[in-house]
């Protein structure tokens, strides 16, 4: 590990409950949207213990899929990673969340 990985970004969806997260993973995968799981950063204490990551390019499609499945994330963040450090910027929220 060099600690100097190139900058990259992704969208992180945070859900209130684990079953919502798993349900979201289920419908996104069924819609052929590549989705990964990660532990919820401790700063987002309003969410459940896991969250989902997707490519920013797929966010609009993912939003539609989640809406059709009636699964509402409590927030979506842009996660930027540089030198093994993550920073999060709120994209949108349906509840009062950490900004």
């Amino acid at each position: 590990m060099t600690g100097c990985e190139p900058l990259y970004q992704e969208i992180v969806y945070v859900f209130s409950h684990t079953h919502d997260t798993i349900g979201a993973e289920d419908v996104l995968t069924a819609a052929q949207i590549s989705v990964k799981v990660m532990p919820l950063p401790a700063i987002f204490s309003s969410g459940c213990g896991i969250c989902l990551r997707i490519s920013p390019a797929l966010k609009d499609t993912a939003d539609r899929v989640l809406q059709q499945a009636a699964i509402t994330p409590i927030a979506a963040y842009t996660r930027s990673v540089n030198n093994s450090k993550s920073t999060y910027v709120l994209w949108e929220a349906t509840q009062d969340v950490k900004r």
Partner: protein
Amino acid sequence: MSHSVIYFDTCATSLQKPAIVMQQVTNALHTFGNPGRSFHTPSMLASRTVYNARKEIATLVNAASPHAVAFTSGATESLNLVCNSLITSQDHVITSVLEHNSVLRPLYRIGCTLSYIPCNDHGELMLDALPSLLQKNSRFLVCTHGSNLTGAITDTRVLNDFCKAYGLIFILDVSQTLGSIETRADMADILCFTGHKALMGLQGTGGIIAEKNIHFPLVKTGGSGTHSFYTHQSLEMPEVFEAGTANAHGLAGLHAGVTWLHQLGLPVITKHEAMLRSAFLSGISHIPQIQLYHPKPETQNALPVVACNIGDLSASDVALMLWENYHIATRAGTHCAPFVHQFFHTEKQGMVRFSFGYFNTLEEVEFGVKALSQIARDRM
């Protein structure tokens, strides 16, 4: 399972499970982490299986969302959680004389006032009595969908309409029916089920199905894997009834069992079990020493359960003879259903219960008829 055993005790638990159930449980034992607690593969495998089990159950009962399904350790825990959450000692509750102690004892413990829907000589509930049972503080109706002893199936449409008309919350115990006959989420406000009987899952699994937006005060709380700094867990279904590590290994089996059931088709199971019951009744109903306790003969709509006695023989003696001489497993005694036995005056004699499942065969039933006939003949 030893093939020398003829198992007629499915009302207690299903002995033979589909092969896929054992495969999935074994697989889970090798691969599962703690569900809902982490993102790594072992945890996610468990989480996805728990979610898929919710989905299968929701589909089975035609519920709109998997979120309507909360998992518990079984129907007894489900009934305890729901009753303790909603019912207070100030409430009047209508229940029935067909109930299992898993319904009765939580109600006794709460100390609410109780009225009982009576049954007729065939062990069928007399629903005409419902209006006469109402009191000013009636708030709940808690009863079984199908008797574990007489096999009588409750007309939930009448009960549901009654509850809607008078503003009662309807809690339905579907322990004996879910997976055996058609059971829908909209039959009642809340269904309590077990996983280890007709659903072919493992003991230690069951749940609560509640589609409507009912406010459930918390009666069980602890770690949920979410909102760690809150002083309590979520009040929404299904989390409101789920605290601590889920029985993910057991739910892997339940998921496999319900998936198997869907693939086979519930009507196939219902038809096969009804055929077994009909054949058994046809075979023994002409034997004069045998006393039957079951719905009217013309009633086709009954669970695959037949309770009986031979003369004045103790039910335990008959069950012992069936086991020792024929390797037939039945359930003798009072079956945790005290009022049914009081009604039929069998508190001391008990009853011998034959309950059939999908994996029973007509040949087994015919052997059961032969065995019971011989025992009865020897008493002449």
